[in-house]
């Protein structure tokens, strides 16, 4: 979504789902995994909305929807591409919206060649390096910088803006006849995604597919809107980003962005996954999406870095203000003009240091020690035996949790120990297992799926030595600073310069989490006064701000907006502006300028949100405008002045984080695997790609090695599609609920879901033991024979899909084989996210013989 719209986050408030006329849940079992949010879908249904579930498994979500469309795992782009084709070929798109607010009329460089012309490869492909040069994807005569959003730093290609976007608008053809305008490229690209082709690839009957396509199109336009909800069923593929891109194209064409009931909800899997992206635990971003400097880009000095990363046009032209303010927040007096505000203190990337490659690097001995907070990779990470191998190479490992987890006792009970491949005596890793406080035992905030920052207060004191993560990190930092105090070595300067002076409370000296929130919000350096909005941030060192998008969460001393809990009454506007804080600017719906037509009038009375008030000379409505409040709808850039920043966007350009203010149906810059989504088979697939000779994403991050081999396409040894999923009853990696008897007994042991027809074919009965295998390993698990999974007919062949929850391990009351022992390590081209949803395996009745039989498997 970052490349398509400008921000990599869900576009609406969760309660806005109730305003939709059509809701498609795809890549998610929302009713079971996001039950609180799902109630808004049921509210929409009561108001007459059509609910649709597209998924390989029939789940409780399917049961509550009006239409259930089954698809084979990993074929989402074919399904969505089919809807795009249906909308374009039948002229069902919202023409006034898309012509004004998307780049549908923009003309692309003449050298552009589509995947349809090159058997699955776009122009600019470097086969030796398995990556793209994006020169031919640009607007004709322009170089378009991508929005600075999630994973912006994942490419080394220079995004430096030569200034071409300030010289004049990109060339367009409003008649849409130019062969290289985006509209014509889209039509050619998706021409083969007919209902028949959708059925051949996905296995979804074309009649069912057509019901979905028609329902969505019917419920889009000036009077009606539709929303998509997705979760990791979309992201956990080598084409995860491109699946979301396909949805973004569709929503842009149909005018379902920035409007009541129109948007895309990225359902997050943990309570604060959105928060851990905003204030990131990711390796390639500084807080609120500022790019981490890179040793191999033109980032040598702060000025180089700013020059490279600051786009000439659009809102991100303000980037230097946010960066200087961040450095002031972190380094205080140590951030000065004469030392580039402490820029050299920041570590620089040399490569992809995300979890998957670092797991491999651990196995190579690169990493000496690791901290594990709120995670359980021995169960939750793919290729879990290779994870164990890496953990065993560490000198030290610190695990903080409130119950014993598999990652902390892998050296004693892990799969490699149980299989006899190693012994505790052979593992040299020194493991420190430290007790952590539970959520109710600490103050803090969660940022949920809809960017809503909600404060929670401590209910009771943590028992014994249990401490919050904040306590641990803060006091660890203090001790390290003491340890290095007085050092004059350059390598220690960053640690010593770090401001680390949060007030401590009580006997336990718990740091004040609201002080951290105040710092994230930002303040003026001279007097420490809280800043109310990010428009006040400066690049002269007079302001400090730990995360510019969170400005306003603590706008005044004593006013923690995240703690606010005042809902609108029944007669209120329904935007609940006094319920917590949504970034940015407490805005509930992103890009909401698009809820009005180019002249600033609501598209319809039924779907009004923001509009231009001529009398007041400003934008007004039921939400905070995602726009310059006083910028007239008829304002146009004065190109003779080579305008910069927001001066280069017109009053009818709603996507202000993009360099041209438009929704990017076609993405010129920012994606590693093509400007348009196209169907590739998963890396492991039982079938060949029907559309192209190119079988899988040619830019996927593949790291084969002994112990991390891949199943070849159509390998007869691994004929079944395999997917993993979560359970309502066991939370995430499982430990918080597997150690609690009352939840453990609800899902007492691991199982694999097998279609009835396949079970019959293999002679497997319900609750029989089975063995699942891939080239990474084998596990044994009991059979759940079910009609929830149905055989697919793929291009005339019957293909079976089986599925297994990944939440089990050897600790707690509810035990079972970790499904992730079967998976391998390879990543999405743009995000390095692993594949857990579509791979291949074998299945047979019976059990593993010792030593393969795990003690956790039970009798």
């Amino acid at each position: 979504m970052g490349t398509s719209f400008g921000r990599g986050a869900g576009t609406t408030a969760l309660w806005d789902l109730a305003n939709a006329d059509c809701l498609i849940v795809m890549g998610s079992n929302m009713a079971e995994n996001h039950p609180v949010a799902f109630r808004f879908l049921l509210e929409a249904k009561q108001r007459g909305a059509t609910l649709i579930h597209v998924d390989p498994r029939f789940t409780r979500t399917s049961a509550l929807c009006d239409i259930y469309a089954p698809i084979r795992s990993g074929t989402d782009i074919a399904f969505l591409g089919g809807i795009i084709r249906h909308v374009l070929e039948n002229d069902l798109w919202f023409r006034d919206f898309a012509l004004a607010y998307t780049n549908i009329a923009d003309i692309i460089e003449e050298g552009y060649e589509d995947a349809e012309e090159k058997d699955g490869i776009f122009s600019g492909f470097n086969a030796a390096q398995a990556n793209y040069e994006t020169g031919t994807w640009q607007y004709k005569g322009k170089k378009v910088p991508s929005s600075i959003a999630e994973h912006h730093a994942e490419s080394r290609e220079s995004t430096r803006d030569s200034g071409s976007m300030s010289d004049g608008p990109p060339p367009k053809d409003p008649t849409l006849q130019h062969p290289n305008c985006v509209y014509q490229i889209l039509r050619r690209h998706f021409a083969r995604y007919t209902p028949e082709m959708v059925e051949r690839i996905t296995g979804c009957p074309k009649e069912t597919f057509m019901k979905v396509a028609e329902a969505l199109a019917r419920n889009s336009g000036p009077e009606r809107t539709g929303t998509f909800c997705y979760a990791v069923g979309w992201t956990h593929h080598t084409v995860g980003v491109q699946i979301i891109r396909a949805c973004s194209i569709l929503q842009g064409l149909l005018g379902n962005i920035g409007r009541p009931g129109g948007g895309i909800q990225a359902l997050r899997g943990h309570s604060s996954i959105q928060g851990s992206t905003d204030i990131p635990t990711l390796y390639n971003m500084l807080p609120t999406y500022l790019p981490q400097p890179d040793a191999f880009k033109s980032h040598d000095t702060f000025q180089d870095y700013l020059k490279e990363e600051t786009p000439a046009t659009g809102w991100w032209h303000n980037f230097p203000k946010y960066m200087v303010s961040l450095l002031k927040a972190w380094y205080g007096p140590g951030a000065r003009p004469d030392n580039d505000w402490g820029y050299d203190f920041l570590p620089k990337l040399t490569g992809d240091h995300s979890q998957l490659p670092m797991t491999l690097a651990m196995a190579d001995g690169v990493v000496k020690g690791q901290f594990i907070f709120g995670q359980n990779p021995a169960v939750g990470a793919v290729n879990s035996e290779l994870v164990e191998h890496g953990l065993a190479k560490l000198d030290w490992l610190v695990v903080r949790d409130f119950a014993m987890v598999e990652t902390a006792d892998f050296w004693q009970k892990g799969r490699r120990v149980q299989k006899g491949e190693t012994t505790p005596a052979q593992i040299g890793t020194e493991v420190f297992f430290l007790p952590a406080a539970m959520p109710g035992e600490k103050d803090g905030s969660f940022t949920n799926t809809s960017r809503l920052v909600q404060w929670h207060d401590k209910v009771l004191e943590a028992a014994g030595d249990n401490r919050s993560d904040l306590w641990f990190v803060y006091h660890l930092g203090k001790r390290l600073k003491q340890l290095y105090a007085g050092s004059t070595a350059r390598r220690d300067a960053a640690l010593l310069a770090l401001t680390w002076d949060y007030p401590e409370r009580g006997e336990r000296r718990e740091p004040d989490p609201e002080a951290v929130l105040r710092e994230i919000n930002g303040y003026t350096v001279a007097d420490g006064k809280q800043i109310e909005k990010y428009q006040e941030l400066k690049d002269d060192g007079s302001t400090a701000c730990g995360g510019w998008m969170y400005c306003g969460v603590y706008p005044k001393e004593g006013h923690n907006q995240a703690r606010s809990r005042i809902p609108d009454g029944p007669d209120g506007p329904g935007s609940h502006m006094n319920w917590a804080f949504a970034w940015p600017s407490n805005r509930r719906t992103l890009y909401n300028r698009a809820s009005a037509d180019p002249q600033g009038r609501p598209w319809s009375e039924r779907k009004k949100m923001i509009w231009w008030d001529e009398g007041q000379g400003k934008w007004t409505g039921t939400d905070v405008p995602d726009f310059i409040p006083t910028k007239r709808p008829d304002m146009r850039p004065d190109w003779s002045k080579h305008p910069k920043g927001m001066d280069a966007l017109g009053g009818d350009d709603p996507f202000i984080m993009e360099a041209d203010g438009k929704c990017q149906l076609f993405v010129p810059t920012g994606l590693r695997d093509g400007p348009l989504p196209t169907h590739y088979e998963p890396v492991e697939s039982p079938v060949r790609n029907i559309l192209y000779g190119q079988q899988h994403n040619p830019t996927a991050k593949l790291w084969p090695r002994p112990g991390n081999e891949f199943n070849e396409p159509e390998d007869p040894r691994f004929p079944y599609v395999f997917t993993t999923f979560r359970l309502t009853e066991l939370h995430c990696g499982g430990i918080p609920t597997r150690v609690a008897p009352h939840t453990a007994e609800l899902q007492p042991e691991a199982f694999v879901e097998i279609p009835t027809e396949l079970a019959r074919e293999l002679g497997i009965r319900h609750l029989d033991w089975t063995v699942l295998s891939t080239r990474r390993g084998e596990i044994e698990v009991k059979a759940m024979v079910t009609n929830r999974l149905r055989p697919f007919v793929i291009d005339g062949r019957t293909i079976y899909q089986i599925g297994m929850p990944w939440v089990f391990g050897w600790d707690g009351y509810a035990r079972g084989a970790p499904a992730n022992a079967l998976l391998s390590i390879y990543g999405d081209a743009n995000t390095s996210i692993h594949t857990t949803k579509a791979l291949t395996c074998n299945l047979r009745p019976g059990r593993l013989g010792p030593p393969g039989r795990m003690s956790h498997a039970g009798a």
Partner: protein
Amino acid sequence: MPAREDRMVVLHEQALEAMDRLLAKRPQKEGHAFSEATRCLCALRDELIRRQSEAGASSGERERLERLNAVISVLVGGHFPLGSIPWDEIEKARAWIP
């Protein structure tokens, strides 16, 4: 030559040879040569750390460790690149091995 010094020399030689093999091969899609070079450099680094832990680090040895860590960082960045593999930088890193 004392046995410990002897071991350092052997590990140093192995690391240089592994880097030379990597640079001669310049693999694009398979990581074995990278893994091999990484393992050799890490073995050298670990031996250096062990020696410094036992005997204390002189400023020269400390600098040697810093340079070695920098080389490993570049190598890991080549093994898991953002975009194209930075062969020029890896070539420079080879010359930096202390």
